[in-house]
């Protein structure tokens, strides 16, 4: 029965013999585990295609809807977090696998004659993979996406002669990023790059088939078949890769930050990890030399990669004798790793609560005092009686929330004003701020509550929120020492003559909390 169906299909399309021809290809006897990476890379791409299409089915590719729709995917839809996690980590995974594939091909000398074109196509595929990463980075439209892309466009804008035109091509007139740049990036990410990638992967595989899998320098045994031995090895490697990817997607949350804010001067832009080395490289070249770090060196590196088969024209030799090639890989690897490491170390760490207003930090205190944590988890996967605030978005109206608080936490010493501030905070909760509910230190919270109780915000501002008649408090604790601050609270006019600030006599513990809070306020 099955056979007659297969015969019928075979007679009309030739599909059966086509598949057989593909599976029963002759490969060298030396082929094995070291040659699985091409298949794994292709599978990575397939996962990106599937998850990318799924995301696109619930995504609005225009700012600011992009952010709202992604938030909807993450907080409202079943498996939304998983699918976004797979797509996010899948991108990194693909870079890693493609890099390993390149490394293996290089070390084994598989780019040598007649496989030069296969190698060069591979380099183009690597660049396309990086292009996916670059264009996809903007699409969540949060601060991370926005500021990361601002830096990218500014770098390319500095290219000699072509700079302004490249900037124009990216839909940006004066270096600003808006709907047009977004449309260009999204269009490239989903309409331009995928078919290009598919065609070139097809061509790459065709050339691999045309020249056959690269043999070892000396092959003694007769050739073997691709199926099932090598296919099994490929599948095991794919399975391992997918298991790691799945574990990352379920266990390491990719936060969606606050919606892109071009006026946010406190955000510290950083590119994705695989571009960090370039980011760091730029720091070594200043002024007119900058172009060396941003264009010349990366350009030379890509050029050398392309030219590898023509620079090294020697006959294929055993891996163990390729000392020069191993030396280059070690040199490049150490260089890349130290640049990346340096970039990571130079990234200042900022706790989520450090960008909060005082009212928001105090709201964290209300959440704790109201013992809301008895029913609501605030970390992913923390199952409690009520909804987990790390997994959902709060849509309830402010009045409804206040009524909910009064009903469930009315007897815990909180005032109506605090309930209203908590409600406002809850409605603004996002992936980053929800972390702060658990992580903000106790004395910082007490300090913010004290700040609210004494109405300091009438004159002073914290993170740009508050009054203008007194100085902003960000960075004050860095410029003044503890004795000065303590003394100033007790007798402001003594320390800053002409100040209109009234004196505050805090108890020891309160003074400590207030100073602890002030120390967290960065410029």
């Amino acid at each position, binding site marked *: 029965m099955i056979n007659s169906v297969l015969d019928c299909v075979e007679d009309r399309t030739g599909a059966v013999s086509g598949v057989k021809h593909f599976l029963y290809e002759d490969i060298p006897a030396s082929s094995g585990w070291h040659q699985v990476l091409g298949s794994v890379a292709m599978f990575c791409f397939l996962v990106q295609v*599937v998850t990318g299409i799924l995301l696109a*089915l619930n995504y609005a590719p225009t700012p600011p809807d992009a952010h709202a729709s992604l938030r*909807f995917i993450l907080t*409202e*839809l079943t498996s939304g977090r998983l*699918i976004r996690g797979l797509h996010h980590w899948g991108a990194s995974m693909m870079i890693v696998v493609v890099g390993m594939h390149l490394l293996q091909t290089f070390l084994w000398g598989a780019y040598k004659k007649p496989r030069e074109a296969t190698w060069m196509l591979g380099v183009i595929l690597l660049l396309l993979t990086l292009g996916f990463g670059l264009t996809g980075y903007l699409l969540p439209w949060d601060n991370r996406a926005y500021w990361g892309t601002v830096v990218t466009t500014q770098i390319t804008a500095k290219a000699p002669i072509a700079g302004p035109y490249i900037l124009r091509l990216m839909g940006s007139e004066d270096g600003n990023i808006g709907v047009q740049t977004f449309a260009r990036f999204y269009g490239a990410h989903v309409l331009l790059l995928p078919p290009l990638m598919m065609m070139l992967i097809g061509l790459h595989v065709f050339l691999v088939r045309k020249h056959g899998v690269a043999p070892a320098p000396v092959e003694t045994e007769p050739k073997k078949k691709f199926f*099932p031995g090598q296919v099994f090895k490929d*599948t095991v490697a794919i399975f391992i890769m997918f298991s790691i990817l799945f574990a990352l997607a379920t266990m390491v949350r990719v936060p969606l930050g606050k919606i892109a804010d071009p006026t946010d001067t406190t955000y510290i832009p950083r590119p994705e990890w695989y571009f960090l080395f370039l980011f760091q490289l730029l720091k070594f070249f200043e002024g007119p030399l900058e172009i060396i770090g941003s264009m010349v060196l990366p350009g030379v590196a890509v050029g050398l990669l392309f030219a590898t088969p023509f620079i090294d024209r020697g006959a294929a030799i055993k891996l163990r004798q390729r000392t020069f090639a191993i030396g280059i890989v070690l040199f490049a690897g150490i260089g890349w790793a130290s640049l990346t490491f340096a970039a990571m170390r130079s990234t200042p760490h900022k706790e989520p609560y450090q960008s909060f207003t005082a009212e928001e930090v105090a709201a964290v205190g209300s959440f704790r005092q109201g013992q809301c944590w008895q029913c609501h988890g605030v970390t992913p996967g923390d199952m409690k009686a009520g909804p987990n605030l790390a997994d*959902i978005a709060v849509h309830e109206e402010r009045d409804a929330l206040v009524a909910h608080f009064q009903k469930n936490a009315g007897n815990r010493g909180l005032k109506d004003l605090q309930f209203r501030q908590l409600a406002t905070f809850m409605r603004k909760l996002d992936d980053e701020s929800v972390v702060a509910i658990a992580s903000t230190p106790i004395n910082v919270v007490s300090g913010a509550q004290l700040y609210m109780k004494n109405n300091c915000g009438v004159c002073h501002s914290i993170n740009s929120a508050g009054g203008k008649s007194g100085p902003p408090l960000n960075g004050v604790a860095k410029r003044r020492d503890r004795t000065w601050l303590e003394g100033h609270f007790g007798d402001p006019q003594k320390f800053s003559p002409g100040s209109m600030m009234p004196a505050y006599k805090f108890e020891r513990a309160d003074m400590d909390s207030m100073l602890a809070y002030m120390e967290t306020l960065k410029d």
Partner: protein
Amino acid sequence: MAEETLEKRRGFLVGSIAAMMGTISAALGLPALGYLLVPGREKKKSDWIEAADLSKLMVNQPEQIIFNRVRRDGWKLVTEKAAAWVVKTGEQQVVAFSPVCTHLGCAVSWNSGDKTFACPCHTSSFSPDGKVIAGPAPRPLDRFDVRVDGIKVMLGDVKKSAEG
């Protein structure tokens, strides 16, 4: 003998390949089904909207009321125009029909000549109390939840009418 072990090994390899590919497909496919088929978590009941003035309605004289309502549309809250056929049936009693034909969703309008709601698409017609008189419509017109507060007529959610 050697051929038999070779055959066994081949069977093991093919079986393993199928099992691993199957697992991966399920790990991608099942979440995808949930993602595409399960509706969003957030369910929002419409607020009561003041739509008409009871004193201006005539008994058994359907009146088309256009009002604005807020609806959750995926990731958005949209304010949109909505319509209802409001019929005063007694001193303090009002019913409000959704103007959407229960057949294929065209807008029905009141035909004052023969006192029916008529659908322009496939000639379904409904009596003043919403029942199907003629045409392919499978069930009576859907009704809004109605609350009468003094002279204010308030509309809530649309309730699907029962079959037949």
